[in-house]
């Protein structure tokens, strides 16, 4: 490994070159993880404001202009609150769980490409790294639930396994679509492959699947049954207080925005925007796209009621998983066919190379893939309508029979 940039500066002070390398890497890690840490403070304010508007309230408006400093006040409050560890809790694991929870989200930011030149690490296995790191979140919640030594916390933790582990399947299958189209798992390559055409136009279904399952992965409404207040009091975090409680929530808030960023990178062309290539403005475009997805996520969270656990499981195994598998199969088949016909931009070796394709070159391919997505969606929508009608008829019949029973005095 060569010693350039920051490493060179540190080495000039007389330090050992190897140690300078290590220090410069460590500083880079701190810088990369600092971005999400700062972002989350602002995100909490955004979230509260939007939630308030949806519920016809004003939201935080007392501390600072537009209540902007409210989060700092909350933070201060959380820090000075009594830090309780239950006597029957597993002291070590109880205290470690919030850390793992936040780390699992912050680690994802290592692979986010902000601009062509600014990113933590361009891992060759970027997409796989994301899935691997995100699975640590499950571990955090299970540890918290078990270590609290509380029945409600344990119940919440049980639900996590059911929820997070099953929604990982459609998530990964949806993630396969951009990987397949870009021919690489590196986030940077995936963004470059969208220079001509964003993947959302090629496979909107994949983006939708990714969005739904990532919403479930964050454990937010309508999938928030791991912390269902009305059934489990609070779920896995019931025993936590002060900043440890705050860290679980910081992780959750950040995870939602992280998903927005990932969707922007994977499906909405990352920093690309028609007519703009400059790095600084590129960073701005990524932020705009991520915020768009983030807003939709908050919108859903504040308007859709919570699912029951059986509904959540059914929705995943009988709906999302089959669709995501069919989507990947159809897409990969069509890409092969298109390659044979020659409608796909190719490199010298004859491999698919979307990063060289322009908008016009990508157009026929996009139209074919989009049509296939529409064709997949038609039977799905029909099926949804049918099952919706059936369950409504069933409910109405039950209500009618109850009304009859009430009238006869049974």
């Amino acid at each position: 490994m060569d010693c350039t940039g920051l490493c060179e500066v540190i080495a000039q002070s007389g330090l050992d070159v190897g140690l300078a390398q290590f220090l410069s890497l460590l500083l880079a890690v701190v810088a990369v993880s600092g971005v999400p840490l700062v972002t989350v403070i602002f995100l909490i304010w955004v979230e509260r404001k939007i939630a308030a508007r949806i519920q016809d309230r004003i939201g935080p408006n007392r501390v600072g202009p537009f209540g902007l400093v409210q989060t700092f006040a909350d933070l201060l409050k959380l820090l000075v609150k009594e830090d309780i560890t239950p006597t029957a809790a597993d002291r070590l694991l109880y205290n470690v769980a919030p850390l793992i929870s936040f780390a699992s989200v912050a680690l994802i930011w290592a692979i986010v490409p902000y601009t062509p030149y600014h990113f933590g690490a361009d891992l060759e296995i970027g997409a796989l790294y994301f899935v691997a790191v995100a699975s640590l979140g499950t571990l955090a919640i299970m540890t918290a639930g078990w270590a609290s030594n509380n029945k409600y916390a344990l119940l919440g933790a049980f639900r996590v396994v059911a929820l997070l582990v099953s929604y990982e399947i459609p998530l990964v299958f949806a993630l396969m679509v951009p990987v397949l189209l870009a021919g690489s798992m590196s986030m940077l390559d995936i963004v470059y492959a969208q220079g001509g055409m964003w993947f959302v136009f090629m496979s909107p279904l994949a983006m939708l699947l990714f969005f739904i399952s990532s919403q479930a992965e964050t454990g937010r409404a309508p999938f928030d049954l791991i912390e269902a207040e009305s059934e489990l009091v609070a779920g896995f975090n019931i025993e936590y207080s002060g900043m440890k409680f705050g860290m679980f929530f910081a992780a959750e808030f950040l995870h939602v925005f992280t998903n927005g960023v990932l969707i922007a990178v994977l499906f909405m062309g990352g920093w690309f925007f028609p007519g703009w290539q400059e790095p600084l403005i590129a960073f701005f475009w990524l932020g705009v796209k991520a915020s768009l997805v983030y807003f939709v996520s908050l919108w859903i969270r504040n308007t859709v009621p919570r699912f029951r656990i059986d509904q959540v499981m059914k929705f995943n195994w009988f709906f999302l998983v089959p669709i995501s598998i069919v989507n990947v199969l159809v897409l990969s088949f069509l890409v092969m066919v298109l390659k044979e016909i020659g409608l796909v931009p190719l490199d010298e070796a004859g491999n698919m190379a979307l990063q060289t394709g322009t908008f016009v070159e990508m157009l026929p391919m996009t139209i074919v893939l989009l049509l296939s997505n529409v064709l997949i969606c038609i039977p799905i929508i029909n099926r949804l309508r049918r099952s919706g009608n059936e369950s409504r008829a069933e409910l109405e019949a039950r209500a009618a029979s109850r009304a009859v029973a009430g009238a006869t005095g049974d």
Partner: protein
Amino acid sequence: MSQIDFSAIAFFIFSLLALGGGFGVVTNRNLFRGTIWLMVSLFGVAGLFVLLSAPFLAAVQVLVYIGAIAILFTFAVMLTRSLTHLTARYNRLWPTAIGAALLFAMLIVGVIWPVFGANEAFAVPASDVVRNTTDLGLALVSGEGYVLPFEVASLLLTAAMIGAIVIARDVDEEEIGE
């Protein structure tokens, strides 16, 4: 050898995680803590894979072993709560343990002895050939690669999965239908 290499520091941290985690697994009486230590150990191994320029294996290690298998362990342990606070020791195979430790020590000595000390021949990086994920994918599915073992393995795994479903399946068929 006076220079502290970046990878040497990383190697030290990861081996500490791997060995310390393993030590935690075998010494801990609490089953849940044991599984957590197991995850620490597996994480250290994943880090070692990264140092050996096998990032794919590292990610799979975290995803499959920590994200899936160890999570299942903890789930099983949580369901059997009475087992998590063991106080009695059931295992009394001292002679076997000593024998195993001796064999392991011999193995370690046998491996380390020939390469101990400053040795120029071993100063080269562990792996010169950097294979990327594309090579791995091609090796798995191309005709000249390992397509046959790969397919046999997937067939076996499918059979195992079907077997698991059959075993776990409720006898009462009508109950499942509802």
